[in-house]
C-alpha cells in the first residue's frame, strides 16, 4: 500500500520500536512513497484491487532493490570462501562459524535479514573434531544468530541424514530455547535415522523446532531446494523475487453468486495479481541493479536463473464458508464435504490461471509462478476476514485425524509451501513415537510440512515463525522488543487467536 510522509514521523516518534526496527520501517515507507503507476507501470485496475484489499502486496514496496527471499548456497563459501568479504575458505570450525556469521550480515531479503542460513548440519559436520568443545561453539553460533538476526523468519535446515553436527544442533535447540533461527528437518522416513527423528520430535515439542518438511515430495516437485522464512520451499541457489497474495475471503464477499465469483471475479483478480508479479520481477531484474552488482551473484552463491516468484492465497476457509452460508448451509469449512468440493473448485480455478500464465525470468520453475499457502499478516482490517492459507479457523478445528486428512487434500496445489501446526499436551512427551507416527501418516498423505509444540511452552509458532509469548506480552504493554516478529505476532494473534489453538490430548 502507498505510504505518506506522516508515516515517517509516526515511526520516528514510536515508543515501541528499536533503532534498527525504525530504520527498516523508514526504508520500507520510502519505497512505498513512490508512485507505483510510474515506477512499476501498475494500471488503475491493478491499484484498485490493492486498495480494495482483494490483492495484498505484503507491503513489499514499489522500488524493488532485492529479491524477497534469497536461498544462498553456503556450500560455496565452504569451498571457496568469499572474495568480496576477503575471507578464505574455512579450515576449521572457528573459521567456518565466524565466516558464516559475517556472510549472513550481507544476505538481504524483504526483511533485510537472511531468510535462509544454510543446511547448517551438513555445513558444520565436516569440521567437527571434538564433540564437547564444538558443542559450545555451535551453541555460541546459534545464540549469536538469535541476538543479531532479530527476525524469526530466518530459517536453517538440517537433515535429512543424521550427522554429529545435527545431533549437537538439536541439543543446543533444547538448551537455548531461542525463537531464531527457525529450523526445519528435511525429513524422509526412509533416509532419516529413526532415533534422530525422535530426538527432533522431542525438541519440536519442548522448543517448538525443528519442524518437519517432506523431503521426498519437495525434491520431486522442486529438485534442489531449501525451506526458508516460514515454510516456503524455494530453489537452491536462487529464491523468490516477490510474493503477492489473494484475499479469497474478501473476493468472495464482493461476488454476488458463486458462479460470478468462480467464472468472472476470481480469474480476473488472479490475472491482475500475476500481471503485478510480472512487473515487479521486470523492475527488479531489468532496472534495479541487484543482479548486476551483488557479490552473491558474482561469486555464485545465487544465480538469477534459479529464482521464481510466489502467488499466494489466504482465506480459503472464509471464501468457502461465505458460499456455504449463502446456500443456507450450516456446515463449515473443515467438516463439510461440500465445503471441500467448493474449496477444490476455487483452488483449481486459481491453479489453472497461474499455470497458464507465462511468468517472466522464472526459467527454473518452467516459466511458471508457484502457488503458495500464505500464512497471513495483519496489514488491513480485511485480514480479520481471511484465515491463513487453507487452514481451518482456530476454534473450529476438528479431531486431529480429521483435521490432517482435510488439510492434506490441499497440499498438492502449493508447490512453494504449505503446512500445519498442532499444539499437543504434555502426555506426548512420554511417547515420542506417537508424534512421529502422526508425522509419518501426514507425510504418507503428501503433507508438505508439519510442526508442533507443547501448548504450555513460552515458544509458540505463530503462523510459520516462532515467538515467545512473554515477548508478545511486552508488545501488548507497549514495550520495546528485540524481534520485529514479536510485533507481527501480536497482530496475527489479535486476528486469528493463534495462542488458543486446540490442544491435542
Amino acid at each position, binding site marked *: 500500500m502507498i505510504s505518506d510522509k506522516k508515516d515517517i514521523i509516526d515511526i520516528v516518534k514510536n515508543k515501541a520500536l528499536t533503532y534498527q526496527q525504525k530504520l527498516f520501517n523508514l526504508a520500507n515507507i520510502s519505497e512505498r512513497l513512490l508512485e507505483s503507476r510510474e515506477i512499476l507501470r501498475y494500471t488503475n485496475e491493478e491499484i484498485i484491487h490493492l486498495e480494495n484489499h482483494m490483492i495484498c502486496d505484503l507491503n513489499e514496496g514499489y522500488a524493488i532493490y532485492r529479491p524477497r527471499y534469497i536461498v544462498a548456497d553456503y556450500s560455496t563459501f565452504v569451498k571457496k570462501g568469499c572474495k568480496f568479504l576477503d575471507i578464505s575458505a574455512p579450515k576449521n570450525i572457528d573459521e567456518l562459524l565466524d565466516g558464516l556469521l559475517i556472510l549472513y550480515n550481507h544476505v538481504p531479503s524483504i526483511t533485510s535479514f537472511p531468510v535462509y542460513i544454510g543446511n547448517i548440519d551438513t555445513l558444520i559436520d565436516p569440521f567437527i573434531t571434538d564433540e564437547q568443545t564444538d558443542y559450545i561453539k555451535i551453541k555460541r553460533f546459534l545464540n549469536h544468530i538469535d541476538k543479531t538476526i532479530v527476525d524469526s523468519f530466518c530459517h536453517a535446515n538440517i537433515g535429512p541424514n543424521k550427522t554429529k553436527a545435527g545431533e549437537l544442533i538439536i541439543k543446543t535447540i533444547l538448551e537455548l530455547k531461542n525463537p531464531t533461527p527457525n529450523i526445519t528437518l528435511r525429513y524422509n522416513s526412509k533416509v532419516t535415522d529413526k532415533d534422530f527423528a525422535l530426538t527432533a520430535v522431542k525438541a519440536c515439542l519442548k522448543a517448538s523446532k525443528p519442524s518437519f518438511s517432506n523431503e521426498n515430495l519437495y525434491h520431486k516437485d522442486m529438485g534442489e531446494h531449501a525451506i526458508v522464512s516460514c515454510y516456503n520451499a524455494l530453489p537452491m541457489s536462487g529464491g523468490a523475487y516477490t510474493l503477492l497474495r489473494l484475499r479469497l475471503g474478501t473476493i468472495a464477499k464482493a461476488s454476488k453468486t458463486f458462479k460470478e465469483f468462480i467464472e468472472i471475479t476470481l480469474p480476473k483478480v488472479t490475472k491482475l495479481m500475476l500481471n503485478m508479479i510480472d512487473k515487479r520481477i521486470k523492475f527488479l531484474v531489468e532496472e534495479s541493479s541487484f543482479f548486476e552488482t551483488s557479490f552473491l551473484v558474482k561469486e555464485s552463491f545465487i544465480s538469477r536463473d534459479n529464482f521464481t516468484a510466489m502467488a499466494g492465497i489466504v482465506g480459503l476457509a472464509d471464501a468457502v464458508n461465505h458460499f456455504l452460508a449463502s446456500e443456507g448451509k450450516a456446515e463449515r469449512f473443515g467438516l463439510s464435504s461440500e465445503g471441500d468440493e467448493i474449496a477444490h473448485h476455487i483452488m483449481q480455478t486459481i491453479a489453472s490461471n497461474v499455470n497458464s500464465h507465462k511468468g517472466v525470468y522464472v526459467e527454473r520453475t518452467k516459466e511458471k509462478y508457484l502457488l503458495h499457502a500464505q500464512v497471513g499478516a495483519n496489514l488491513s482490517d480485511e485480514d480479520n476476514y481471511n484465515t491463513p492459507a487453507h487452514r481451518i479457523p482456530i476454534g473450529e478445528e476438528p*479431531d*486431529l*485425524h480429521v483435521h*490432517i*486428512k482435510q488439510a492434506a487434500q490441499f497440499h498438492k496445489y502449493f508447490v512453494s509451501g504449505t503446512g500445519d501446526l498442532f499444539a499437543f499436551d504434555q*502426555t*506426548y512427551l*512420554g*511417547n515420542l*513415537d*506417537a*508424534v*512421529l*507416527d*502422526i508425522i*509419518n*501418516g*501426514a507425510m*504418507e*498423505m503428501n503433507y508438505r510440512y508439519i510442526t508442533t509444540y507443547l501448548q504450555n511452552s513460552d515458544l509458540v509458532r505463530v503462523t510459520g515463525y516462532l515467538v515467545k509469548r512473554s515477548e508478545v506480552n511486552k508488545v501488548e504493554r507497549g514495550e520495546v522488543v528485540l524481534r520485529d516478529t514479536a510485533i507481527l505476532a501480536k497482530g496475527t494473534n489479535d486476528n486469528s487467536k493463534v495462542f488458543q489453538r486446540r490442544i*491435542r490430548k
Partner: protein
Amino acid sequence: MRDIIVNKIIPFSTVDGIGNRCAIFVQGCNVNCIYCHNSETINLCNECRECIEVCDQNALTYLYNKIHYNEDKCTFCDNCINLSKYQSSPKTKKYTVEELFQVVKRYKPFIRGITISGGEPTLYKDFLLKLFKKVKELGITCYVDTNGFYNGENLIDLIKETDNFLFDIKSIHQTKSLCRTQLKGCLENLVHLLNLNKVEEVRPVIIGDYDDSKNTVITVAKTLKNYPDVTYKLIKVHTLGLKKRANEAN
C-alpha cells in the same frame, strides 16, 4: 460371537503401547477391582433406565425395549455413568468385525496399531481373532491390554494373532479381596506370554492396605529380570477420577 460391545474408542492414544495407537475399550470385565478407574466398563447395561432420568440433554431415550444413545446431544457430563449403581454405561455401541474394521481403517495412516482395552478384552476372544486377522491386512499391529485373568488354553489362537500384550498384575496373593474374584493364574499367564516374547509392558497398581504390594512388585520384577525390553511401570493408585461407586468401595 457376532458383535462386540464397545464403551469408547480413542482414535489417537499415547498411553496404550509405544507409538500412536487407536485404543478400543470393550464393555464387560471378569473382575471388579476396588480401584478401577473405568468401573463403568465392568457390567453390561441392564436397561434399568435410571440414566435417562439424570440426562439433562435428552441424549438417552428408551425405545423398543432398548436404551438409545445420541452422541450428538451428549455433553459428556458423565452423570449417567457416575450415578449408575451397576458399574455400567448406557453409552456403549455394538460393532460387527467389519464395522469396527472400517473405524480402524479411518485412522490407519497415523496409527501404528490398535490396542483393545476395557473391560477385559479376552472375554471377546473369538471376535478379536477375526478382527485382528483383518486389521493386520492394513499392515498395523494388534495389542491386548489384559488383566491376566484368563484360561490360557482357551486363548491359544488369540495369543498367536496378538502382536503384544499390555499386562496388569493386580496382586500375587490378594486378588480375592482386591479384585473380588476367585479367578487365578495371572502370573503363570504372564510367564507364558513372556516366553513367547509377546509382552510390551507390565503394570502393577500399588495400593497399600489391600494389596501385597511389596511382594507383587518384587515377584514381578524377578519374573521380568531376563526381559530387559519389557517396560515395568508401577502405577500408584489415586482417587482422582474414581467413580462414585468405586470410591464407596474404598
